[in-house]
């Protein structure tokens, strides 16, 4: 008579196999996996229901109005409004950010990474930039209201799109600096050493080698900053963007921007008559803004991934 029966042997074998291949049911493990999957599913579900709500609500605005929804002006009837003043405002703000925040931000990042000595003052500058990145947008609005609308009135002509562009440029400056600094820090030291070795000055090494090498990362920061500036509404409320009537768009008059239109329109009650209500108009403007912001974000993420993949070999 065998000491170990066949049935015992096969039972042990399955037990061991299950333990090794992790097919055995261990309740806490399953509970953890299920909890995590629920969390991820909810996160994704939120994103998709948000996108779905915007798109379905926006369809009437585009199918009924077509191009006139983009080229029309704002007003008090939801089935006649267009977002042109908002597009003009947002476009000008984008240009302002590109002209002001990007050069200043890249310059500051180059200084802090390439020139600045490790002393208390420069460390303070870096800490300060990190803090500025966390200041709520509405506070930049207060700054814009006093400095650009008030003190610099001769330049900006008060609460105009110029003041808005300056305010948002200041708001995204820390983002540009921080991402550019990270990109510059990732440039291999050997590149600089080689440049100095053949007698180049610091500026020549920076201009000809460091900055071109760090360009994809710098561009990512720029693109993300632009996306952030286009979506921000709180500072614009503070400096007096309007949402009522705006017959003509100019750099020196009253202004509005797409996020302001969404803010104002989504608060107005939907009347029963007409095919397009305020919520459709708001969703239409929202879809345009989302498209702009998401395109910028995807470009940014793509650039960064491309950039990271290239770094692996170095």
């Amino acid at each position, binding site marked *: 008579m065998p000491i170990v029966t066949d049935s015992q042997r096969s039972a042990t074998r399955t037990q061991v196999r299950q333990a090794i291949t992790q097919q055995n049911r261990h309740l806490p493990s399953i509970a953890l996996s299920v909890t995590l999957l629920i969390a991820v599913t909810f996160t994704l579900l939120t994103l998709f229901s948000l996108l779905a709500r915007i798109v379905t609500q926006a369809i009437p605005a585009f199918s009924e109005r077509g191009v006139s929804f983009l080229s029309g002006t704002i007003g008090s009837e939801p089935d006649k409004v267009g977002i042109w003043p908002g597009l003009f405002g947002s476009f000008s703000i984008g240009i302002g950010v590109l002209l002001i925040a990007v050069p200043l931000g890249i310059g500051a990042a180059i200084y802090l990474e390439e020139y600045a000595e490790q002393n208390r003052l420069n460390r303070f500058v870096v800490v300060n930039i990190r803090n500025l990145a966390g200041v709520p947008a509405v506070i930049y609005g207060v700054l814009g*209201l006093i400095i650009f609308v008030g003190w610099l009135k001769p330049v900006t002509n008060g609460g105009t799109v110029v003041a808005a562009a300056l305010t948002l440029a200041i708001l995204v400056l820390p983002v540009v600096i921080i991402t550019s600094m990270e990109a510059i820090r990732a440039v291999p030291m050997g590149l600089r050493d080689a440049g100095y070795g053949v007698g180049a000055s610091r500026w020549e090494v920076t201009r000809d080698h460091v900055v071109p090498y760090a360009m994809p990362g710098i561009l990512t920061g720029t693109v993300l900053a632009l996306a952030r500036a286009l979506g921000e509404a709180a500072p614009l409320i503070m400096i007096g963007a309007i949402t009522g009537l705006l017959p003509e768009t100019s750099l020196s008059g009253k202004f509005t921007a797409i996020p302001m239109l969404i803010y104002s329109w989504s608060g107005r009650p939907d009347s029963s008559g007409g095919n397009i209500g305020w919520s459709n108009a708001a969703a239409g403007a929202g879809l345009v803004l989302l498209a702009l912001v998401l395109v910028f974000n995807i470009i940014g993420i793509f650039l960064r991934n491309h950039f990271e993949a290239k770094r692996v070999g170095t």
Partner: protein
Amino acid sequence: MNGLLAVADLSGDPRRRAHDRRMQRLLGSSAFITIIISALILFVLARGSIDFLKSIGWDLGVLRDSSKAPGWFPRRERFDLITIVMGSVLMGSIAMLVAVPLGLGTAVYLSEFAPTRVRKILKPIVEVLAGIPSVIVGYFALKFIAPNIVDPIFSPDQSRNMVVAGLAIGVLVIPIMASISEDALRAVPSSLREASYGIGARKSTTTIRIVLPAAVSGIVAAFIIAVSRAIGETMVAAMAGGRDGSGPRVLDPLEPGLTMTAAMTNAAGGTDQVNSGAPFQVLFFVGLLLFMMTMGLNVFGDRFVQRVRQQY
């Protein structure tokens, strides 16, 4: 020239050196502009706050409305600070109730459980969520969260209330919570996990008993920074929170409420329509308070982030 090289010859062309110094000054000045910006923010807020305190005659009692129905009514010169601070705290707390489980769960899944292929798809999606402007989330709160989730479940008196705004602010800060905690989890060296597997621990045990405790300072940092974002969020609170200054001190989140940020937009020309005197200047005072709160949280959170970096 006798063919010998002196030290002076190695220092290069003086014009090139001068150009280098000019560039250094130019670049340096753009870095120091950030200091000027901070100083200006502080100056503007402090000066406005002092003006405000002057116009209420330094009577700090005004900031604590003791009448029967206390509230935030700047036009009637009633500035009950507790109303708006409570509004911010309540909506922020609801937001964190959403953001912590969802954000942390997503982070743990991404860092510990997701196969590389899934991670490559999921991570950009979370980043896209991070890029969605807050007005869009505000719209989502008004047109989806309020009518489709909060109204049917809680049937509140008004569909714009602190729960709706809190949930939507939660949606906004999920990505912040997720991405900072994921960084912290991935910074835990794999040798710790391997040691745990080596003595026969399961994946779930390793995650809960080894990886999470090792990453705890980063997760705390994520939490603090997310709280700071939630308190500083303006658009969602203004659009979906109800903007009601009579927002009661009773802790009923299904009532409409007013946050500090929404009170600021009101004062600047939203609904209150006054551009001088205490009702307008109060926005600087609230701004200073908000600035100090978020700055404190950020500095505190940053400490934790630095600690993670140093540890490993």
